[in-house]
């Protein structure tokens, strides 16, 4: 972030339109209400597409400039001006944010198109599209804000959109509960971000990225450590990282396009963006960086293990998302050596995971919204396009060359080994283990859904989805095939991001030759696939989940007891606390209030007796009063 940014000029003043277009869509659709039911989805899709076009224009503008002056800023207005504290509302588009802008608007637009067909029979489709547009606008604000506070606005905005969309079918109590859970867990992370902002303001008097970056360095190691830990908490909340991971599985209650866009491709990766954007903080705080690595490693294994036992296709994919973001966080925790790979994996993951989620949606669409993979099987015949695209996504995620996941994941594993010493070996091996488990559970998903015997319900008539749905999946599949090679070829993405995240960073000697790491990774993947083959192809899958399974399976089915843990450690004590407080409120506070009320009421009844209604009493009272006044006035003189 040391790069100085050119003043807004020319098309850079288009920046605000990136956000304004979808925001306008959301506003129109929400205000127009049912009147816009007929055309609302088209408007929303069109505006999202327009935003994507603006993003592409910006990309070409950026390419026409040199590396150092590629970033552009646009000052909008002075937001807060209180004494010495000034916050400008400004936008910043640099090499890092343009990646996100294109991912958000590109994948976002495809998912808008997909949703037109997917949500066709929902009578609230317009509301759905207004929330989608709201999400796009908020997410763009998140990645374009030029200060922590501006980012925070977008951060809360995507949280709101996520909440609204998870609970979109809030007539089902379970879904409404899922939305609430996501919201509450996210709030804990949001606390972290607000703490980070407060720390920055207290220590440096500024909350802009540039302002905080100016203070980076060993002089402020302690402040940066605290700020880094607070930012990590924020990232863990938004990106479903350990220990705030529990909401993501339940978030699958939302319509599947939402799971693809928000809970796979974009919003959940905001934590990775935050860490990468705050690279100057973490680079000055090794302790915080180590914590980031630990969180990443724990989550990538945690998510992978949960993924092995899920029968719900969306939950299996959600567990995989959690695990893949663990990889990204791990990479981001490795510092300048890893930021670019974190972003690379984020982008490739955006493609293949979105395409797989949309594929899952397509399966559900053809199977009466069934999500239990034990009721699928042999769908490759009924849904060839979905099968092919899902298959490409599968090859990408497990990291088979030359698909995109291979390049990005391979780089992360390599960087992990390169971290050096025992630490390098531990995280490297953990990443390899994760790759093996990923291969296992993704093969399991693939096999259970598309291969084997058909296990459909009698009333299911699986059929391929309409073109409006398959076309976006096909486009995304192209990304999952090619993106990785494109980014990795000649280290293009690494060089592109270098001015923002890794200025002056020189790669050291690798601990292991890259080819060895690649071979090890491929062996791990092959082992995972082979194990899955043994367990799910050789032995036919049962239509009902077997009950007499090992304790480990049961453990994984229950999400490694994350909910039980939260319930025992946070929810129950919290309930006791609220109960105690409510008791205190009722007995002590209300008691005092009611007691006071009763006291005055009683007094009132007593003094009211003076008011007899007889004029003689009143006159006597006046006489009495006059005598008192007279006595009081003359008292001093007599």
């Amino acid at each position, binding site marked *: 972030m040391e790069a100085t940014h050119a003043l807004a000029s020319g098309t850079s003043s288009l920046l605000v339109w990136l956000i304004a277009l979808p925001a306008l869509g959301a506003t129109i659709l929400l205000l127009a209400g049912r009147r816009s039911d007929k055309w609302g989805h088209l408007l929303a899709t069109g505006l999202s597409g327009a935003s994507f076009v603006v993003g592409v224009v910006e990309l070409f503008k950026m390419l026409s400039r040199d590396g150092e002056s590629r970033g552009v800023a646009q000052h909008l207005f002075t937001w807060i001006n209180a004494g010495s504290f000034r916050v400008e509302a400004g936008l910043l588009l640099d090499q890092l944010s343009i990646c996100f802008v294109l991912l958000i608007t590109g994948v976002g637009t495809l998912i808008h198109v997909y949703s037109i067909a997917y949500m066709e029979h929902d009578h609230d489709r317009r509301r759905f599209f207004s929330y989608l547009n709201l999400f796009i606008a908020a997410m763009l604000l998140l990645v374009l804000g030029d200060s922590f506070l501006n980012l925070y606005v977008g951060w809360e905005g995507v949280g709101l959109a996520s909440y609204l969309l998870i609970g979109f079918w809030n007539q089902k109590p379970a879904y409404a509960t899922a939305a609430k859970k996501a919201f509450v867990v996210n709030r804990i992370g949001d606390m972290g971000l607000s703490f980070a902002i407060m720390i920055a303001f207290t220590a440096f008097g500024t909350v802009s990225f540039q302002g905080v970056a100016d203070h980076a360095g060993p002089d402020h190691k302690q402040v940066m450590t605290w700020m880094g830990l607070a930012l990590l908490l924020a990232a863990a909340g938004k990106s479903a990282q350990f220990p705030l991971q529990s909401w993501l599985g339940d978030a699958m209650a939302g319509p599947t396009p939402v799971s693809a866009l928000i809970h796979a491709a974009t919003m959940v990766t905001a934590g990775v963006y935050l860490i990468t954007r705050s690279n100057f903080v973490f680079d000055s705080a090794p302790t915080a960086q180590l914590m980031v690595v630990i969180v990443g490693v724990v989550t990538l294994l945690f998510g992978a293990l949960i993924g092995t036992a899920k029968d719900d296709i969306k939950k299996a994919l959600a567990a995989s998302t959690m695990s893949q973001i663990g990889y990204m966080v791990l990479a981001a925790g490795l510092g300048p050596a890893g930021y670019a790979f974190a972003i690379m994996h984020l982008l490739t993951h955006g493609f293949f995971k979105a395409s797989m989620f949309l594929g899952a949606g397509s399966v559900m669409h053809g199977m009466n919204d069934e999500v239990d993979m034990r009721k699928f099987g042999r769908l490759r015949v009924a849904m060839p396009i979905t099968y092919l695209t899902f298959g490409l996504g599968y090859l990408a995620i497990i990291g088979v060359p030359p698909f995109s996941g291979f390049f990005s994941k391979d780089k992360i594993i390599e960087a992990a080994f390169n971290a050096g010493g025992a630490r390098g070996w531990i995280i490297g091996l953990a990443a390899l283990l994760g790759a093996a488990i990923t291969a296992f559970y993704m093969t399991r998903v693939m096999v259970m859904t598309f291969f084997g015997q058909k296990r459909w319900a009698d009333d299911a008539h699986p059929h391929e989805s309409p073109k409006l749905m398959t076309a976006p999946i096909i486009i995304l599949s192209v990304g999952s095939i090619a993106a990785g090679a494109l980014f990795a070829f000649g280290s293009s993405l690494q060089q592109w991001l270098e001015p923002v995240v890794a200025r002056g960073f020189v790669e050291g000697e690798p601990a292991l030759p890259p080819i060895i790491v690649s071979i090890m990774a491929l062996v791990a993947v092959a082992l995972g696939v082979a194990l899955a083959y043994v367990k799910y192809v050789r032995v036919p899958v049962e239509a009902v989940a077997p009950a007499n399974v090992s304790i480990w399976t049961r453990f994984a089915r229950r999400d490694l007891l994350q909910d039980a843990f939260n319930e025992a450690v946070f929810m129950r004590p919290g309930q006791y606390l609220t109960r105690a407080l409510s008791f205190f409120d009722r007995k002590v506070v209300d008691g005092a209030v009611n007691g006071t009320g009763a006291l005055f009421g009683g007094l009132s009844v007593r003094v009211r007796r003076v008011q007899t209604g007889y004029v003689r*009493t009143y006159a006597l009272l006046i006489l009495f009063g006059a005598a008192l006044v007279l006595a009081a006035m003359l008292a001093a003189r007599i």
Partner: protein
Amino acid sequence: MNFVAPVINYSQVLPILIVLGTALLGVIVEAFFARDRRYQIQVPLSIAGLVLAFVWILKIRGTTSITAESAVAIDGPALVLQGAIVILGIAGLLLIAERKLDSSGDAFVAQAAAIPGSEAERTATLAKLTQTEVFPLTLFAIAGMMLFPAANDLVTMFVALEVLSLPLYLMSGLARRRRLLSQEAALKYFLLGAFSSAFFLYGAAFLYGYSGSVGFRQIREAIQTNAGNDVFLLTGIALVSVGLLFKVSAVPFHSWTPDVYQGAPTPVTAFMAACTKIAAFGAFARLFYVGLSGARWDWRPMLTVIAIATMVLGALWALTQTDIKRMLAYSSVAHSGFILTGIVATNKAGLSGTLFYLVTYGFTTIGAFAIVTLVRNASGEATHISGYAGLGKRSPWIAMLLSLFLLGLAGIPLTSGFVAKFAVFSAAYESGSTALVIFGVLTSAIAAFFYIRLIVLMFFQDPEEDGPTVAAVPLMTTAAIALCATVTLVLGILPNALVHVIDAASRFVF
């Protein structure tokens, strides 16, 4: 001894003269026009007179002079209060003139001379008789109220007191429904009013005995030079105070207030609750700030104790009232205590705070009583508080407006009442009366309880099966309510314009 014609600057007293003249015209109308045409003439005539008076007050704004042989002082406080009285008089007159609410005519008795329950009364009611004497009576009262805060000697003050009181005694007894209650109220008001007037006169005599004059300036100078007998002065202050404290309904001289407010026709209650209090406190302030300011260390402790008693007891009594008019009456008692807080401050902030308080109080009070005239059942106004349960569901707008006025009376921020309370309390604090401020704030909390209890009743309880309703909201009442609501809100949110005017005007001439 030659007779010398008194020197009177007619322009400066013209507002009072216009109102008096209009009242006299009204009497002539009563005499010369047919019964069924009087209403059409009286209402526009009265309002035109009041509007003209207000225009003239605006024209002579900024005047600071003593005229009419030192009997009348026209200065900032006098003009501000006269302006407020005239505008509130218009609002009150609109309520009095309303004939679309009561199925049998207006709020006033068909034939005042008919004995309640007699054959004559029944005949008059069946004939749908309506009277219009109430309009000139109102104007006479308004003229007296305008003179009261401008009176610059004790005799003029007494005359003004009687001019404003006598029509009010009559008007209180004119209720169309529940006539016995109304007549009882009128008689009580008259008897006690006469009783307290006697105290005032006796006190005036003592002050004359002390200073050899009834003029405020002469009394002031006598106190400064310590010319006379102290006992005469102190006795005079005590007795004059009793007369004035009666008019502002301060404890223990308040006992007429709930009975009269309840018994009088509600439009009359609205009018007198607002305007009498303004006039009486105006006179109070002039007497104590001009004539008796040299003796402030003698009267301040006495008034402090009375202010505390008035605030606390007024709020306490209001707590257990079940009739909304009585509740508002006790609330008016409590407000007298708050206003006395401003008077006791005896500084410029105290005076301007008092003036601001009086203006805001007048508008919220008329507004609240105007709503009381709307909530009716078959037998007229439903004044029992239980009738207001669920009003928010039946008539949300009316309930919201009443809530606004109640919040204004309670002194909740964003209403004029908050700014006013803040003004008098901060003035009192500035002058060192910390105890008064503490009592004031605590009492405000007690008072908030019964205002907000009514709001809770309106919005959070279900209406009674055949409870009262707001059947009609006719034009003139709507105009009065709209005026009061606007002032309450605007002075709550943007009080600065009026604060500046009053600040600039807060200086008595002597």
